[in-house]
């Protein structure tokens, strides 16, 4: 249940991350959250998950805004900034974690579950927390739908319309950070980015509309959460996070191949079909050129002439016959009235296109 909700909220917010080309931000934030968890633990000395999550949220936000600062203020590129913050924060977090392990505090065990996550450790209150956050996300998303959408696709236009782009930007980034931090417990630092990306990337293949995409991503996310948990529960020693990620990537792969408009399969089919059509047209045009030299269009010619022509195969000829453009009599062929018309139109179209 918890993983389903998590998947849904990650899918929703992930759509925005993917469309804003900030896919790897999720990766960076989830790593950057680690020192926050450690510091929160050092300060409170207790393993209250809410406090730890708050710490993670704060350090995730600091990481995000530092990344922004690096990108805007220096000539370092975004990938450098991301990798930099990611590794530095994570290393610092590791330092703190090992430091904590040396401290005489019985509570410290289990902090490293945040590294890889374990859905089994979710208790009811965590699920409630997740549902509440998801609810808030949903409300905010609906409230600011128009603003989010316009900012996503045309930031400059949004600014000229008088919206406070900075505020919307911060708002959506904060929600992404929030979702990531929530997911840390379940799937862990390393795999969180896939949770954010995979459902959104899969949903993107099926639709061009933002609303549908967000909805689909939520469903994909929820399903991978449920299936992943179910699969990992059936076997021993199978941690939840990796299984969920694998299920989600199966969704992505499926979408890549089978999506009707963008999928690889249909693209290939369309490609082959187009090539066949082109061959057919070429043959017809060639026949037209021959037939043109005679007064009578239905004057028969031998098939042998066509053999020199590249686009010609027995199949294309048969197809032309099927369409009623050509009549075959033994080894001779002739254009029909209709075929002549189509071919001459074809020729006109081609010259028009050339112009």
């Amino acid at each position, binding site marked *: 249940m918890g993983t389903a909700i998590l998947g849904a909220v990650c899918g929703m917010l992930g759509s925005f991350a993917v469309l804003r080309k900030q896919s790897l931000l999720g990766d960076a934030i989830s790593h950057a959250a680690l020192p926050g968890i450690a510091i929160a633990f050092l300060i409170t000395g207790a393993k209250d998950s809410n406090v730890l999550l708050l710490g993670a949220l704060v350090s995730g936000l600091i990481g995000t805004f530092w990344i922004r*600062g690096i990108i805007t203020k220096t000539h370092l*590129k975004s990938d*450098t900034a991301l990798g930099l913050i990611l590794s530095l924060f994570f290393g610092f977090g590791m330092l703190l*974690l090992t430091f904590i392990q040396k401290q005489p505090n019985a509570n410290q065990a289990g902090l490293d579950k945040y590294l890889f996550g374990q859905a089994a450790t979710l208790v009811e209150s965590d699920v409630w927390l997740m549902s509440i956050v998801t609810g808030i996300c949903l409300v905010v998303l609906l409230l600011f739908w128009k603003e989010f959408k316009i900012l996503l696709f045309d930031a400059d236009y949004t600014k000229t319309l008088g919206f406070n782009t900075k505020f919307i930007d911060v708002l959506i980034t904060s929600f992404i950070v929030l979702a990531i931090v929530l997911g840390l417990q379940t799937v862990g630092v390393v795999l969180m*980015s896939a949770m954010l990306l995979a459902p959104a*990337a899969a949903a993107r293949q099926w639709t061009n509309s933002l609303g549908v995409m967000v909805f689909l991503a939520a469903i994909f996310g929820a399903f991978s959460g449920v299936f992943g948990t179910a699969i990992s529960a059936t076997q021993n*020693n*199978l*941690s939840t996070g990796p299984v969920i*990620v694998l299920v989600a990537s199966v969704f992505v792969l499926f979408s890549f191949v089978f999506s009707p408009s963008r999928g690889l399969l249909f693209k290939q089919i369309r490609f082959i079909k187009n090539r066949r059509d082109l061959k057919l047209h070429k043959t017809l045009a060639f026949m037209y050129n021959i037939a043109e030299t005679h007064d009578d269009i239905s004057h028969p010619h031998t098939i042998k002439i066509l053999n020199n022509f590249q686009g010609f195969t027995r199949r294309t000829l048969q197809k032309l016959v099927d369409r009623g453009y050509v009549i075959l009599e033994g080894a001779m062929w002739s254009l029909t009235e209709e075929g002549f018309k189509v071919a001459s139109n074809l020729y006109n179209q081609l010259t028009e296109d050339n112009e």
Partner: protein
Amino acid sequence: MSNAQIEIQLIASLVAIACAIPGTFLILRKMAMISDAISHSILPGIVIGFFITQDLNSPLLILLAALTGIITVVLVERIQRTGLVKEDTAIGLVFPVLFSIGVIMIAKNANDVHLDVDAVLLGELAFAPFDRLLVGGVDVGPKSLWVIGSILMVTVGLLFAFFKELKVSTFDAGLSASLGFSPVVIHYGLMTVSSVTTVGAFDAVGAILVVALMIAPAASAYLLTTDLKKMLLLSIGFGVFSAISGYWFAHWLDASIAGSITTMLGLLFLVVYLFAPTKGLIAVFYREKQQRIEVSLLTFLLHLKNHNEEVERHVNHLREHINWQKVRAKTVLELALKNNMIVIDEDIVSLTKKGNAFTSKAIDYIITNEDSQIEDMKDDFFLFRG
């Protein structure tokens, strides 16, 4: 300093150098995140290699892991080429999948052997000296020292052999293609070196630190210089410095060496980020302020040139006319006075000869749309900058 301590520092420094070299090129080629992806996705390669050899230090392991690294790069490019998703999404999709596969394989099969995810991801430098390499029964030093040492030798060799090619293809792929060396070969060569370095370094310092060591020194160096050779040297220097200082920091805190090296790298980057002479945050702020004042000065001088009437040139009038704050008006006036652009005679401001020349030239440049020339002109005219 005990023998082990020296060895640890030596290993850490070698790793830092070995990472800094490919890291510099990765950053310049805007592929920094690839190193992160590689460092995660080599996990299945390592696991498979471990099942075959049952030895964490065998060369086969490194080979397989490097292969997985290259597979990652190829996969990312394949997915990207379909045009279905952007590059960063492709990276973000590929490496968690491979990493998950690795984690699951470990969880299912390797429960009773010494190989767990923490060890791969985080590494532990402190134990590196205890894993000795024995040649004919003679102890010749820690294994990881030899592994990373040989990787470093290869990297440096390749760097010297192909420096020119690397340089050209990094900055101008088109030119390098037309000169006859394929950017693709160099691209994959660099990727291979990065993968091998990552793998060789991982069991000493862990996957995350490898990323930090690749990116952070190079990024810091990039803020300080734009010369490729200097950048390489600087990033090597930064890497070694943080490796050694990080070791002592960890020694003092009694915490993870990898973590504290990363922390030192972070501090180093922060310092450079703030104080770099031309590209640091403070320098950028200072320059922006300077330019603002100088633009104000120019506006002010233009205003003076346009008005001959004494009323328009009265000190108090100027403030309300151009609508400046009192402080700002004062800075601008002082700057102009210091540079001998204006004279103030009984509260009436007028241009000097020099000020007049400067202003007319500036108008010329503005009219002919060559605003960038004004910057050079400022150097000729200004005694003091804003």
